[in-house]
Each structure stands twice: as C-alpha cells, then as structure tokens.
C-alpha cells in the first residue's frame, strides 16, 4: 500500500517540472534589462525604504491576534446563521456561550489596555514592557 506514495512522489516531480519549464523558457527567451527600480522589492508600487530587518512594535502582534480571534468568530457565525432554524434553541444557547467566552476575552484585553495604541495608564518603557535590565528607566 505504501507504494501508493509513488503517486505522490510522481505528482511532486511533475509539479516541480511543470513550474520550472515556463520559468526556464522565460529565462531563456525574455529580454533582460536590469534597472534599479526593477530590482527593488515590490511593495504595492511604493518605493521601498530602509531594511526589512527591523524590530516591529510588539503591539502589532497583539492587535493582529485580537483581530484574528474576532475574525474567526465571524467565520463561525455565518454557518451558524444558515442552520439556525433547523437546530432551534440549542443553537442559540451554544452560540450565546461562545460569544460570552469571546466577551470575556474582550474584557480581558480591554482591562489589560491592549486595545489602546497610546497607553495612558502604563508608561511606555515601564510596567509590563519594562526592558529586561530593570535599571534603565529612560
């Protein structure tokens, strides 16, 4: 049975070959005219500025995470809305519990002031995000 993996292997080989062939063809026949703009990173038409290897503010991630959670909530809500009539009360209770749990999460990030971009209560550089060396207070 594990010989069936041969098919998979064949598919992988074929994939590589099929992708490489057009690339090779275009590399062979396309004209090569390298200007600075053409070699630059493509960023939606904007001109790239500086290196991409820089530290991003940690709050981007937190915001992204929070966004993700509520995004997924919507993903669940759509199919629920479709079958809601068939399932009736139980579906309502289930979704209620689900939303309540999400609300707890919302309350949590709210109280921990992760929803505010500019922190008022927690001084930037102090408190939760104090640097590892406890001495620096700048």
């Amino acid at each position, binding site marked *: 049975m594990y*010989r069936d993996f041969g098919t998979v292997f064949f598919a992988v080989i074929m994939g590589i070959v099929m992708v490489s062939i057009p690339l090779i063809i275009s590399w062979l026949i396309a004209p090569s005219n390298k200007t600075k703009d053409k070699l630059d990173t493509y960023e939606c038409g904007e001109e790239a500025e500086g290196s991409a290897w820089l530290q991003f503010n940690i709050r981007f991630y937190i915001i992204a995470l929070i966004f993700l959670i509520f995004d997924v909530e919507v993903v669940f809500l759509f199919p629920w809305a479709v079958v809601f009539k068939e399932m009736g009360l*139980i579906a309502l209770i289930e979704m209620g519990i689900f939303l309540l749990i999400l609300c707890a999460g919302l309350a949590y990030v709210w109280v921990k002031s992760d929803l505010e971009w500019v922190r008022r209560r927690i001084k930037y550089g102090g408190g939760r995000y104090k640097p590892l060396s406890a001495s620096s207070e700048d």
Partner: protein
Amino acid sequence: MTNLQSLEFFIPELILTITILAALITDLFVKKSKTNMIGWVLGVGLVVVGLSVHNLSSAPPTTLFLDMIVIDPFSSFMKIVIILSTLLVIVASWVNDELEKYRKGEYFTIMGIMVMGLFLMTSSVDIIMLYISIEVVSIMSFVLAAYLKLDTRSNEAGLKYVIYGAFSSGVMLFGLSIVYGLAGSTNYFAIQDTLSSLDGSANPALIMALLMIFAGFGYKISSVPFHFWTPDVYEGSPSTITAYLSVAPKAAGFAMIIRFFHQVFSDSIGLTSNSIGSTDLPWPEIIGVLAVVTMTMGNLVAIQQKSIKRMLAYSSIAHAGYMMLALPVLSMEAVESIMIYLFIYVFMNLGAFFIVIFVKNKTGGESFEDFEGLGWKMPIVGAFMTLFMLSLTGLPPTAGFVGKLYIFKTLVGAGSEFLWLVIAGGVNSVISLYYYFHVVKVMFLGGKRSDVITYPPSTMFGLMIFTAVPSLILGLYWNPLASWVKDSLVFYNQVM
C-alpha cells in the same frame, strides 16, 4: 456518541473551562499583591473537577464527540494524578519567592488551560485530537517556562522550549501524516484495523512513521534523544513550573504513549487480554534500547551536576527511563506497573522540588553549597529530603522501592528476553544512589553544624508532609494503590 450526548460525560472538562474563565475574570479585579486568590479559584475548581472525574470513573467506557476522545477508568486515573500534582504545585506557587515580583493571575489561568490539555492528552483516540492536545499543553508550558520576564534565563528557557517544541511536533506531525496515509483514517481504531491487515511490505514506512511520532512523545516524556530541552528549560523556569513539568505532562505523556501504541498495535481482542501488541515490528527492542539509554544518560550526567535543580532535571530523565522499561513488555501488567510508578513518582519528585524551592527562598541559590548543613539547621527539612532521596533511589521502605519493584517484577515475569532490561535498571539504580546520597551527605556532613534549629513556614511544612507521607506510607502499605490501579486498568476498545 454525538456531540450533544457527549456533553454529559464531558462535565469535568466543562467545569474546568468555567474555572479557567472564572480565574481569568477574577484576575481583572484584583490587585497584584492579591493574585494568590486566583490560585484559590483554580484550586477549588480543580477539586470539583476531581470529584466529577471520580464520579464518572465508574461510568461504562465510551467514546465522545464522534470518536474523538474516550472516557474510561484509565483516563480517570491519569486525570486524578494530574489534578493532584496541579493542586500541590498551586499551593507551592503561593510560597515561591521567585514569583513575588509578578502578577500570578495569568500564571494560574495558564496552568488551568494546561490541565485542560493534559486531560485531552490522556483521553484522545484520534490523531488530530492528539496533536491539538499536545500543542495546548506545549504552548502553555512555553509561556509558563518564560514567566519570569525579568530573568534572562527564564526567557531563554521559554524560547528554547518554543523552538524545540515546534520542531518536535513538526516531526511528529510528519509521522502522523504517514500513518494517516497508510490507514486512511485519523481514528485509532480504524488505524488499528488497517494496520493489522497490512502485510510486511509496509513495515519500513510504518517504522519511520512510528519513530517520528515517538519523537513527539519522547519530547513530552523527555526520553533520549529527544530530551535536550529538559535540563535547560528545567533550570531556567520558575522552580514550581519545573516541578510541574517534571510530573504532570510526563504522566499525560505516558498515558498518551500507552494508549496510542497499545491501541494501535493491539490484536483484535484489544486491551482486555493479558498479552497485547502482536506485531512483527522491532518495537520492543527499540523502546528497550531507548529506555536503557535514557536512564543511563540521565543518571550519569546527573552525577556531574553542581545545581540540585539541574540534577533533579537529569534525574527526572532517568525516571522516565525507568518507566519506559516496562513499555516493551506490552502487557496489562506493564501498564499497571507504569501507573503505580507514576503515582508514586508524583509525590517523591514534587517533594524534592518543594524542598529545593524552600531552600532557594531561604538562601537564594539551588546548588549543593546551599544545602550544606541543612540537616542540622532544619532537621525536619533534612529528614524529609533524605526520605525523598531514598525514595527516588528506590530503597525500601519508601514508595520508590515499590514502584521499581513493580517495574522489575513485570520485566522478570515477561520472560528471559527482557532480563537485560532488569540488569540495566538495577545497575542504574546503583548509579543513582551516588548522586542522591550526595545530597544527603552534603546536608548532614557538609557545612557548619548549627545549634539554632529553625522550622519551615506552615504552608511549606504542609506541602512537605503531604508529599512525604505518601512517599513513606506507600512503601509500607501500597495495596490500596495497587488495587485502585488494577481497577483502573480498563481501556475503551472498539473493534471495527
């Protein structure tokens, strides 16, 4: 069983979820100095969970949520072991000075989520569920290991753990995908059904897959060669978390291994007969070699350690090796001996770690020098530590002896082909004597004798009593434990 019907048997986990939410919300309303209260919330919740687990342990074994997880006496036993160790660690966290600088709300909450993952680990019968539960436990462990935000070593431990964990679960996922490819199903019972009908030609793929899966399992129970994270993470983490990681995930990991391998390789009668696991794979030999290497490595490197916490980390690797000794036998007796060992190990290992925490609170260090003269300064603590060391070595009349006795009895009873494991185990016990008694020697012969005798604070003393009493009593009268384990040796099994 359908999802709604399953809920009735899922009550412990539901209560646990409510507890976790309650802990999370309580944390929003209390001041930093009062965050021990969240430990109370979680502790009380866990006691209720324990009661409901106990309540369900007599229910007939069945699968829940469309064959995702099972409830059976075996998982109930493991859940109770997990709850016991979590409760002990919660109490220890109240008095661990390392955590004084931080809010402990999230700490306790995350611990609760980890218990949830551990519960699922013990009872999953589907490789998807298996993977998810391992990840829940792992991610929570990463956070807990790095909980000392101001301590670079803790941060380092967390980061190493993350990467190592990601790598291991990656390898395991690869193995699982091969198994899925062979069997065409993610369900254990279906996999078992398919595998038993395979001819030998699939063996190479199967062995590859199993070894890769074992990389994931071995990482959880820290077996060689998947143990490298253990010393670094154990040393860097808060001591309470080190103690916790050395028992609870290990117990769940063993539950998971036993369930997976015994379920997948069982014959059609399943786990009810005395001899299970008819397979022509060299599985017993592989696990046997790994077990011997694990305990030998753990013991030999432990001898060289200067820090007692790190020594205990290596010692916990060695103990994983002892428990693994029984795995190759693939019989109910072997499972019984592992369960007995695990239960005993929880108490003796946690006890030793609690004393390390206590000494660190007192002296600020955890090396052998910090233990010098402890037996004279605090005779009670010295006596308890001696008891734990005796028990970890496995000398009568302590509980550790009974654990080893059952493991060796299983091996001797299983036939002469396992005799080399007995010999290796015996030699290793002798080697471990060296470093365990080094602690005793340092406590009683090292340092200056002091005339002033001090006593540990009452919470710490209570913890020591609570771990020391079972470590001793179970060495003298273990029949209730043995019969409880015997009663818990019922696996849910389903013949396709």
